[in-house]
């Protein structure tokens, strides 16, 4: 079976803007070369292949390039080098900003977010009840979103995305730190949904800081360090190394 995702020597850089105030001054500073633009490599010569139905957990310090990696695969960022092959459709769950509007009811928001994720109106109507059920928000369908707590929002977003996945059947699901907010019951639910998707050969890439969670639910773990692969392989092994790395750093009291 062929790979769903194949990244070869992918690089992604960001120009770090040291703001000089207005664009005019910035332009003058660039032209006169007083301040050369600094470049930050968020991903550098990064390679990865992912197989159908595989769950890859991604760990690493803040700023290691985890979210950038997901955004590159999702097609939100353009790469600056290397080759990126995403053979199948991708469903990203990168942040809670999937277009929800505070002043609208949950019903309208479900239709809005669903269409942004590529569903048609009919398809959303089909899975509307399932979305509400999975999010456990049955009594709030016609409440405005501004009255929702952050836990409710997270559940809503997760439920919309998971149900969109079921309908539009993409082969790749990207999840960034979505489990951090939910309670135990919600977590359990999300895990069982993820397992169902995996059985249907959906490849899942997820970022999490909960190492136990990563160890239990991924087939391989990727440790990202400053935009490069530090280690990739057996979950328990990589997580143990990472934990040791963390301890060392805490003892030295600084980031490397």
């Amino acid at each position, binding site marked *: 079976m062929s790979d769903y995702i194949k990244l070869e020597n992918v690089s992604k850089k*960001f120009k770090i803007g040291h703001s000089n105030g207005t*664009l005019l001054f910035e332009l003058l500073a660039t032209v006169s070369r007083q301040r050369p633009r600094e470049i930050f490599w968020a991903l550098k010569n990064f390679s990865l292949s992912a197989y159908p139905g595989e769950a890859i957990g991604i760990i690493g310090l803040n700023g290691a390039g985890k979210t950038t990696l997901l*955004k590159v695969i*999702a*097609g*939100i*960022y*353009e790469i600056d080098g290397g080759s990126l092959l995403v053979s199948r459709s*991708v469903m*990203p769950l*990168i*942040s809670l*900003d*999937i*277009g929800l*509007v505070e*002043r*609208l009811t949950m019903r*309208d928001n479900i*239709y*809005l977010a669903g*269409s*942004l*994720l*590529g569903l*048609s*109106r009919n398809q959303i109507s089909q899975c509307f009840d399932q979305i509400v059920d999975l999010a456990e928000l049955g009594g709030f369908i016609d409440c405005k979103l501004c009255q929702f707590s952050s836990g409710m929002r997270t559940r809503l977003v997760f439920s919309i995305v998971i149900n969109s996945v079921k309908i539009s059947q993409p082969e790749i699901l990207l999840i960034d730190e979505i489990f951090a907010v939910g309670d135990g019951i919600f977590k359990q639910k999300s895990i069982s949904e993820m397992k169902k998707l995996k059985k249907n050969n959906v490849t899942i890439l997820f970022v999490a800081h909960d190492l136990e969670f990563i160890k239990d639910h991924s087939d391989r773990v990727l440790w990202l360090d400053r935009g490069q692969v530090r280690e990739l392989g057996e979950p328990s092994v990589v997580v143990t190394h990472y934990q040791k790395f963390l301890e060392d750093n805490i003892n030295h009291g600084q980031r490397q």
Partner: protein
Amino acid sequence: MMMLSFFNKIKKCLNLSFELARISFKIRNEGSFLGLAWYLLNPLAAFGLLLFLFFDNLGSQIDYYPVYLLVGVIIFNFFQQATTESSLAVIDNAALIRSVNFPREALIISIIFKNIFSHLLELVILIVLVMAMGLPFVGIIYYLPVLLLLAIFTLGVCFILSSLTIYCLDLANIWNFFCRLLWLGTPIFYTVVDQPRLIMVNRFNPMYYFVSLARQILMPLRLEIGYGVAAIFYSLVCLMIGWFLFNRLKRKFAERI
């Protein structure tokens, strides 16, 4: 197969645009007393004031002055509303663009959809006025192709504005100012007949052709083919430039905003 997926993409994009337009319509009406009436109030107030100011003087030289004026006001209003809104459309949706990979064009197309809808409301008033003044009703039907061309032209401008504003935020302010100048420069409440200097300048003003064409269709004036050709030319060229620019720059949206 390629063709099919291309059309599928376009259909999806239009669906999304329609949904976005519907939602933003809803947001605007939510919690507002007058709701839909706001869409009419602005152009109607401008129309009423201008009519009051110029009816006796300028109006006496122009036949069917109220229709002449209202056509100019609502056409320009469509253009101005859509373009000013689109200049900030990408920036206002920064968080969404950074986390979902939806077709970016839908943000802009939805603005056109929404403005076409409110334009249709204004059209109802135009129809009433046309009938009240005893002009042939059939002109309204021929007006629709002009509206289509205007929408295509405006879409092009919106694409250009929305993608360039990311690089230069001043553009949103400059555009506001420019629109005011263009409003005065386009013969909306006056006429350029017998003023060669003004006609000369207006040759380069696309809005002039749309406004004139609509008037030629609705009022007993001679329909000039040249104006139609110019309107088609301007709208297609503008859409092509806008589409090209937007497609080149949209890949950078997520990291620029």
